[in-house]
């Protein structure tokens, strides 16, 4: 068996993408697809609906003038609700916050006024002809799930998940040097296997270890044990 030593030759089918900043730093982010965004939109719509109801009831007491206030609220919420939250609340409307996604510029800097304004004005087209059909079509066809407004504004919606670092576990196994020279990708595969072994069932571990028989000369339970020992050695356990 060979793990490709050259690294992956073709870009994987993945929502992750890299951005290199002018400072020479490479960030990695995962674009959020239509489902979390639709759910976030639903939550935002509920909040807006609630505000409409409250404003409608309170302005009703103000008679004619109340109608005016209600329409002004309607206008502001319809066009500027997302803009205000995106610019002042770290790219997140309440709905986006609930689903841990946020709007950023394509270079992963915080979204700016102008870009937020453009993407939310163009919502008027994405929503056409009904149920955001244009927006959804555009999302499925574009690289980073961008609707028309996102493309014009140069923004993306990304996941904002805080992945905790896996605490390096004290390994019970005796570290053991690999029986032969390993390629970087092989080394990496083995360390990943070691770190994540607690999430993988015993039998699956054995199955995976059997695949690496050409490297370890062992299979099944023994192979898995040896792989974890090699992993411990690679991680630098003593």
């Amino acid at each position, binding site marked *: 068996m060979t793990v490709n030593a050259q690294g992956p030759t073709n870009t994987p089918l993945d929502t992750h993408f890299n951005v290199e900043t002018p400072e020479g730093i490479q960030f990695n982010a995962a674009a959020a697809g239509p489902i979390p965004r639709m759910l976030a939109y639903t939550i935002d719509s509920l909040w807006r609906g609630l505000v409409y109801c409250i404003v409608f009831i309170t302005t009703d007491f103000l008679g004619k003038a109340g109608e*005016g206030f*209600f329409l002004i609220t309607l206008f502001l919420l319809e066009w500027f609700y997302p803009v205000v939250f995106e610019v002042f609340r770290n790219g997140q409307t309440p709905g986006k916050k609930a689903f841990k996604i946020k709007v950023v510029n394509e270079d992963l800097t915080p979204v700016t006024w*102008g870009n937020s304004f453009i993407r939310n004005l163009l919502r*008027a*087209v994405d929503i056409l002809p009904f149920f955001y059909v244009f927006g959804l079509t555009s999302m499925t066809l574009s690289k980073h799930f961008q609707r028309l407004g996102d*493309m*014009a504004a140069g923004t993306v919606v990304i996941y904002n998940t805080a992945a905790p670092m896996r605490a390096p576990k004290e390994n019970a196994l005796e570290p053991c040097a690999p029986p032969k020279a390993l390629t970087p990708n092989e*080394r990496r595969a083995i360390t990943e296997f070691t*770190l994540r072994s607690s999430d993988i069932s015993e039998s699956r571990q054995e199955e995976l270890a059997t695949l690496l028989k050409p490297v370890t000369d062992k299979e099944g339970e023994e192979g898995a044990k040896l792989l974890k020992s090699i992993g411990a050695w690679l991680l630098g356990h003593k």
Partner: protein
Amino acid sequence: MKQQEFETKYQDTWHTFEAMIDHYHTNNITPGKEFPTLYRQICGHLSLVRERHYASSIEIYLNRLITQGHHILYEHSGKIRWHDILKAIALFPAALQRNGFYVLWATLLFVVPGLFTAFFTYADTSFIYSIIEPNTVQDIEFMYDPKNNKLGRENRGSDTDIAMFGIYIYNNIGIAFRTFAGGILFGLGAAFFLVFNGLYLGAVASRLTMAGFSSTFYPFVIGHGAFELTAIVFSGAAGLKIGHALINPRQYTRLTALKLAARDAVHIMYGATLMLFVAAFLEAFWSSSSTLPIAVKLSVGVLFWALVIWFCFYSRLGYRNEL
């Protein structure tokens, strides 16, 4: 260096940095001077992690730390300052003058259909019914008939002014925004709204003039029209600009051309939005007055037009260096 050694060595730096980020998000305390230094160090660590093929969990962790740090370093002030609004106003005429080509086309798409329907309504009064429903025509005529005295805000409470203000904001600014947005459909949406509004307004103006309601109609529309009609044309021009970028992207890819066009067009939209708020205010609180003499309303209206045209096409405000 093995991964574990690496982690033990730099863990404290990462934890300090992480604590600063948490502190910023929970208590809104801006991190101190050492923040950028730590940030640069951790960027270096991430590069090493990638170079040495350490496990992905540590890479993900560091990537998240510096992504969050990057956001804090590049965050905006979070306030709207007067300076920003004045800057938007100053850059507006410059953006219009840069895009004179689109403003001209938008004006033609709006005015030519208007003249067309005005002429046909003049030649045959019933022509208007092929554009507007008879009931609506009746309503409009009723509103502007001097006998009915419907327009005067003095005859209604100030609460009606506010109600009208709300209607103008909701409808008119909404139309202008949709006109701009429609531009992304290769300019067709913007052109549609411009032509449609032109046809409609031309027919109405012609019909009311022929019915002899000029004395109520023109003094009413001239004041806020200076801001409203022009702002709708400008929104259309901004929309045509993004549409044209898609049709003829020149040396760029379509996507890049679209982004560049939108970045410029947004300066027009800031200005147009402000003009539309002014227009809604005037329409509700000034145009509707019936006690002001017609001469005053007409001359102020002419003044507004002159002011708008001068500001939009002749002022050199945005070109000054200090901006």
